[in-house]
Each structure stands twice: as C-alpha cells, then as structure tokens.
C-alpha cells in the first residue's frame, strides 16, 4: 500500500480584505479575504514551514526525496527543493526536484511521490505559491498565498493511493513569461468552456471508469476552481452534491495556484474519517484526477498546527497600500542608510546547517548550548569539543526586546527580541507576525524560516521568531 502518511500546511498570518481593493479602485470585488505572504515570505519559506508542519513528529532522516511544486520559484536557475531539504534537515543522499511552470505542478509532484513510494522511498512533497495578478485586475482578487506538504510512502499510510487519470493538452489560457511578474489570461469564457470544464471532466470520468467508482462513493471531491462559482458548476455537472465539494479556501486564503488543490487536500484530510474516498482534481494544461482512500491509520496521525490552525491565526488589519509595498508594486523612498552588503556564498555554504537546519552546538565538556556554532566554548573555552545541537523546535521565550522605529523595513516598526531556548542557547533576532503592543518579556515564540534580503539577486534566508500559536 502506498499513499499519504503525513500532511501539513501553512497560511501566512496577514490577510487582505478584498473590500480594501474596492476602496482603492472602486470596482466591485468578491467577498472574503486573501492570505498575503509577509514581506519576508515567498514560495520557498511558506513551503518550508508547511513541510515542517508536516514533519512535526517525524525523524527527518527517514525522508528519501523532497519535491517542491510552484509556479513562483524565487529563482529561474537554482533549485528550491534543496533549500527546503536543508530546512527539514534531511540526509544528503536523497532525491530533490522542483516541479514548476504549471498550475498542475502540485498534483504532478504528488503523483511523482506516489511513484517513488512504490520504489520504497519516503517523499516529502511540498507546494507553495505566491502569485501576482495585475493591480485592479480580477486575478489580484482571486490569488492568495499559502503552502501544503505531504509525506508519501508505503508505511503507516493514512490515505491510500487508489488510482489516477492524467490529461495533458497544450491549452494556452494563463501564462507568464520568464521576465514578467503578473499572470495574463485569455478571455474567461474560452478558458472555462474550452479548457477547465473539458479537462476536469475528462480526468474525473477517466479515473471513475478505471476504478469503477461513482460520484456517490466519495466523501469529498477536491476540485480546483479559479472561483467557487466555476468549481460548483462543474462539480454538479459531474454528479457531485454541494456537500461533497471541498471548500476551495477562496474566502479565507484565495486561489493558491499550484498549491490550491494540495491545500484543499490537507483541509479534507483534517476532517476525513477512515474509509472515506477522496477525489483530488487539479487543472493546468490538462488535469490530474487522483483517488485516495482514507485508512484507519489516520486516527494515529498527530498533526502539527495544520491548515485550520494557520487559517485561524491571522491579522486582517493590513490595507492595500501595505500589500503594494510588500510586493514592491510601488516605489517607496529608500531609507537613508548604506546599501546592504550581499551574503558571502562560501560562508553561507560553510554555515548551511546553522542557516537551514537551525543548528547550534553543545559543548561536550560543560554542556553549554550556543549559537551560532563555533569551535571554542563560550563558557569553558574547551576547543573542538562541540557536538551539533538543533535548536529548531525547542521551546523558546522572549528574554527582552525593543521595538525599533529607525530600522529599514517594509513593515515598520521592527521588533527585535532576545530569544532564549529551553535547554540553553540564545539568539537575538527579529520577531514578526506579531503586533508590537502584544510583545511581552517571557512570551513564548517559535522560529519561522524567512527571506531576509536580496542583494545581487542572491536571496538570503534565515530564521525569525514568531509568536507561538
């Protein structure tokens, strides 16, 4: 038996009420909110956080492959999956691959994970997305940011892979050239009537025919839809009742592109019962329809924060101006400060365990935990008596803090906290996704993987603190 053995998700803390877009441009907007990646988040960081959510109770050395699916990889040339593998602290002898350029990348990566599981590999399939629509356009309203992750393997399977049907057609409805930031589309009737409705129907009918199952057999259909309206129409036409249709998260998160159906799958698994059949249907240059059957093992699965947890943890006060600033869609006055120096790649590489896996060291002589790693103990000065010590996941509290109004930031003021870890170790770092008025000495925090800055198109990633949920 192969299938899903764990799942996790991530939704950024900040949500933009679509009404704010109407406040700015006047045109009617759909109701609800869209999740907005913070200025220091991207598809990699959100994907990494979803993968950590998925692996909360997992020995990371059991991971044999990491696949990352997105249409918004931060680099055109440089793999994202290897970064996420570093954050997960996997072994080095694993497979990694990015699945890019198609809204179907998420389901393609899951299917690749299923194939790998058949060969006995435990695959972490991660998908994260951070797409942009033109300002005042419909896609700006539709798109939201988020991520999901699944561990796929052949032991302790909680959702067994039953079968799938894939359709691939060179259908050109949405596109974004490699020097562009915003998604284009052909006129909507063509996209829906000739593309979406056709391919989704073909893949669903194909997999039902292969398996002999009928719509009534399914607990949920997870059906991609650019809006709930199109999703509902085609689901009904295919014979599914509204109660079977998994909510698309449009009102809380928005359409998360390649991560959209995977995030809905994570939501469905949070509510699933043993023996439920789940039909996941993606869309993009065709469609993948994949059937899972939930097993008794699901009751033994201990989730992390989960999609629901992250959706509930939110701040909705951001206005449209802040959204424009975070996505660097408006030119704001630079701070009168020296230009940031780029990261040294040799130093970054030497420090990869610290920077990605968030490792410090512990002195074998005196037991003092310290960060960043160094060869000489700060406490007893023993030399070369250090062992690796992973600080990620350790409970942590704010020892003292300040709120800095001077520091250059896309979201001032900047909270700087001295974070002390249970068992030892101290880090002075930024505290984000937190209202400055809510910071207290002693408050519990956890670490979140973030994009720190980009200079010479080198993206520097590291950890910041966030309030513990």
């Amino acid at each position: 038996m192969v299938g899903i053995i764990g799942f996790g998700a991530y939704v950024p803390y900040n949500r933009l009420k679509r009404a704010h877009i109407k406040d700015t441009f006047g045109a009617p907007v759909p109701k609800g909110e869209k999740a907005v990646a913070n200025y220091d988040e991207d598809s990699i960081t959100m994907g990494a956080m979803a993968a950590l959510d998925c692996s909360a109770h997992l020995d990371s050395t059991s991971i044999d492959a990491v696949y990352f699916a997105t249409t918004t990889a931060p680099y055109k040339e440089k793999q994202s999956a290897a970064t996420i593998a570093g954050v997960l602290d996997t072994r080095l002898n694993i497979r990694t691959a990015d699945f890019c350029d198609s809204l179907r990348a998420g389901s393609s990566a899951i299917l690749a994970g299923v194939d790998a599981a058949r060969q006995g590999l435990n695959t972490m399939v991660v998908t994260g997305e951070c797409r942009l629509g033109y300002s005042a356009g419909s896609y700006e309203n539709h798109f939201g940011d988020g991520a999901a992750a699944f561990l796929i393997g052949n032991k302790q399977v909680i959702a067994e892979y039953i079968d799938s049907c894939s359709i691939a057609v060179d259908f050109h409805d949405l596109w974004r050239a490699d020097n562009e930031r915003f998604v284009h589309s052909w006129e909507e009737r063509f996209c829906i009537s000739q593309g979406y409705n056709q391919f989704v129907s073909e893949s669903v009918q194909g997999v039902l025919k292969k398996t002999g199952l009928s719509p009534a057999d399914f607990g949920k259909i997870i059906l991609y839809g650019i809006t709930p309206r199109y999703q509902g129409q085609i689901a009904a036409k295919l014979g599914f009742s509204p109660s079977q249709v998994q909510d698309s998260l449009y009102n809380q998160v928005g359409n998360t592109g390649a991560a959209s159906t995977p995030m809905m799958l994570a939501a469905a698994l949070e509510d699933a019962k043993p023996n439920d059949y789940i039909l996941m249907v993606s869309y993009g240059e065709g469609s993948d329809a994949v059937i899972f059957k939930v097993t008794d093992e699901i009751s033994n699965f201990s989730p992390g924060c989960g999609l629901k947890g992250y959706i509930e943890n939110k701040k909705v006060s951001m206005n449209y101006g802040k959204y424009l600033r975070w996505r660097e869609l408006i030119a704001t006055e630079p701070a009168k400060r020296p230009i940031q120096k780029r990261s040294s790649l040799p130093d970054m590489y030497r420090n990869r365990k610290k920077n990605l896996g968030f490792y410090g060291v512990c002195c074998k002589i005196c037991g003092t935990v310290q960060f960043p790693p160094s060869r000489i103990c700060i406490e007893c000065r023993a030399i070369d008596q250090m062992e690796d010590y992973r600080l990620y996941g350790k409970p942590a509290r704010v020892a003292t803090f300040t709120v800095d109004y001077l520091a250059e930031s896309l979201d001032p003021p900047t909270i700087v906290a001295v974070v002390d870890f249970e068992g030892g170790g101290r880090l002075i770092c930024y505290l984000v996704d937190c209202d400055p008025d809510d910071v207290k000495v002693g408050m519990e925090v956890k670490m979140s993987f973030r994009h720190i800055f980009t200079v010479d198109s080198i993206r520097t990633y590291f950890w910041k603190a966030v309030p513990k949920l």
Partner: protein
Amino acid sequence: MAKGIKDRAAVIGMGCTKFGERYDSNLEDLMIEAIDECLEDAGIEFNDIDAFWFGTFISGMAGLAFSNRMKSHYKPVTRLENMCCTGLDSVRNACYGVASGAYDVVMAIGAEKLKDGGYSGLEVPAEDSDRTLPDLTAPSRFAFIAPAYAHKYGLDMKQMKEVMARIAWKNHKNGALNPKAQYRAEVPMENILKSPMISSPLGVMDCSGVSDGAACAIITRTEDAKKYRKDPMYVKGIQIAAGPAHSEKHQSYDFTTAFETYYAGQAAYREAGITDPRKQISMAEVHDCFTPTELIIYEDLMFSERGQGWKDAMDGFFDLDGGLPVNPDGGLKSFGHPIGASGIRMLYESWLQFHDKAGKRQLDNPKIGLAHNLGGQPYSCVVGVGIVGSELG
C-alpha cells in the same frame, strides 16, 4: 610581573575641535584645528613629534589617511580602529610608545568625518559573512537594557523613562555651558520624555548625536614632562577589555551590565591604585551613547552599588554640583560623537578642568578624572577606561 604604567606617561598638550555638523570642514581641516590648539598648548612644533597613533572608525584607511594630510614626513603613523573605543585606545598605545622608551614625544589623535556620508545614523563596515544575523540599529542594541534594568530593580517603565530622561537632562544642561558642544541647549524633562520613539523605550532624546570632530593629545614620559610645562596631566591607568560575546550567547546575562566596562574599570583601578572610585574620582566622562548605557556604567564602574545607579542619578549625585560629576562637558549626548575623537575628547575635559579652563562648568579643584569609552553593544563590546590625575602619586 607587569606593574602597569602609572605616572610613567604625561600629557603636555591637548586640542579639540568644536563637534557637530561640520559641513564647512573636511578631515584635514578638523585635524589641523585640533592639532593647532594642541601644539600651542604644549608649546612645541609639529616636527618635534616622533610618532603618531591615529584613531578613526571609518574616516580613512591606514596611517596614510593621517600622514598624507598632515605631511608628517616619514614618521611612524599607526592607524587604530577599535570601534567607538578607538579614541581612548589610541591614547593607550601612544602612552606605551613613550613609556617603553621607543619615542620621546608622541601624539594620539582621533578624527571622524561622519556627516559627509549622507546617511542617518552610522555606517558600519561589514565583514564578508553569510549576513544572516540581524544588522540591528545602534539604539536597538542598547534599548534592551531599559526593560531588563527596570524589571530587575522593580521600576515601572514610567519611572525608568524618567531616570533615562534625567540623565539626558543633566548632560544637556552641562553641554549648554560648553562652547565646543554640538548641542548647546538645556532641554526640559517633559520634552525629553515625549521625544519621538526611536527604539522603544528610547526616544530621540535618549540618543547621542552623529558628529564630525577631532581631538588630540601630546604625550611624553613623566620625567620629561616638566621640560614642557609645570602642570602636565599624568596617566594613572589606562586599560581596555574586549569581550568574548558570552553575554550575547548565554542566558545568564540579563542586560543590566556590560561586563567589559566592569573588567576594564577593575584593571584601570588596579593600575591607578583606585580603591574607592565613588570617593576618589573627581569627575568622569563616560560613554553615554544612549541614556541607559550611562545608567549601567555607574554601576559597572562602581560609582553606585548594583541597583542603586538610578537613585543616584535621580538624587543629582552625578550632576555638575553633585558628589561625582559625570559628563560635565555634556557627554556624547550633548558634545556629540565623532567616533574616533570621542575617547580623547573625554580626556580633554579633565585637561580643561585640571587647568581651571572649563568656564561655567568648572569644578572645584578636581584631582582625578576618568574617561570611559565603549565600542560595540552592551552584550559584546570593547571598553577602554583611562584615569588621569593633576598630581603625581
């Protein structure tokens, strides 16, 4: 066994420019201004100086930044950089130059031209590194002290703000009497308390200025000093401590001290033979880069008992007419902070006070002056403490 250099080096002349936004002056102008005053004071010629220690944080590289401008022939010039402790460390090394017998007459000069950079705040040269750790602003590095101190000693944050404001108020009051100070105005307590927030709880009036300026000292061996003047200033002790960043990485550190200040102070007291600093020291110029820094310096230098510094500050013990005047010239807060020059500027106040040249802020017969110069942040810094006296012994 090393015995230190107590009374083995003596200052025979000092100079200091007006500190401030010196848009009219370049580094050469600033150095000439300080050196002219210093030479006239000492009664010697520039060419009489055998060697130079030139301290600057970011205003020039190598001894050449000095020798090219000052045309110091082919004499030795050491460029010294030890962050904001640069000035006092230049003096320390110059003292060793004469005490060792290597030279007869040396100059320590600190100069900084910050206002040509066009940035607000400081421009700190960065090492090549992965640059993952936060590049915090200077005020945020020191702001950590305030809530920690208040929490440890049972002050509420309103009281803490008042203590901080009292320190700024004092330094501005003193600086208002100093014609060379950058900011020469008394500031009412209520204005300090409501100044715009920079890094909580530090308002802009809790922060020192960004300045241009230069200061210098000519130093000889003590036995030669009387050849130049009857009233030299004797170096009693001068020590630095560079921290291992233990505080930054170890949870035992509680942000109410800078151990480097304590250790440098202890070493300087030992060298100078000071056993009761609160009583023996006549005046102190300390590194009040931010108001909470001055507060913990009171305790680290043992002017006050632990947890009592805030009471002494509120009681006026460190005022111009108090038991131990601190920053009688206005400090970094009011005099300004051209980094490389600041440590030497601190000694310049003792020089003026010893020679009865401090004008309206003149103290009554001061004998022992202290300078405290800090580079870095409270949890990882290099600190210099220098002690000077008007008499031998």
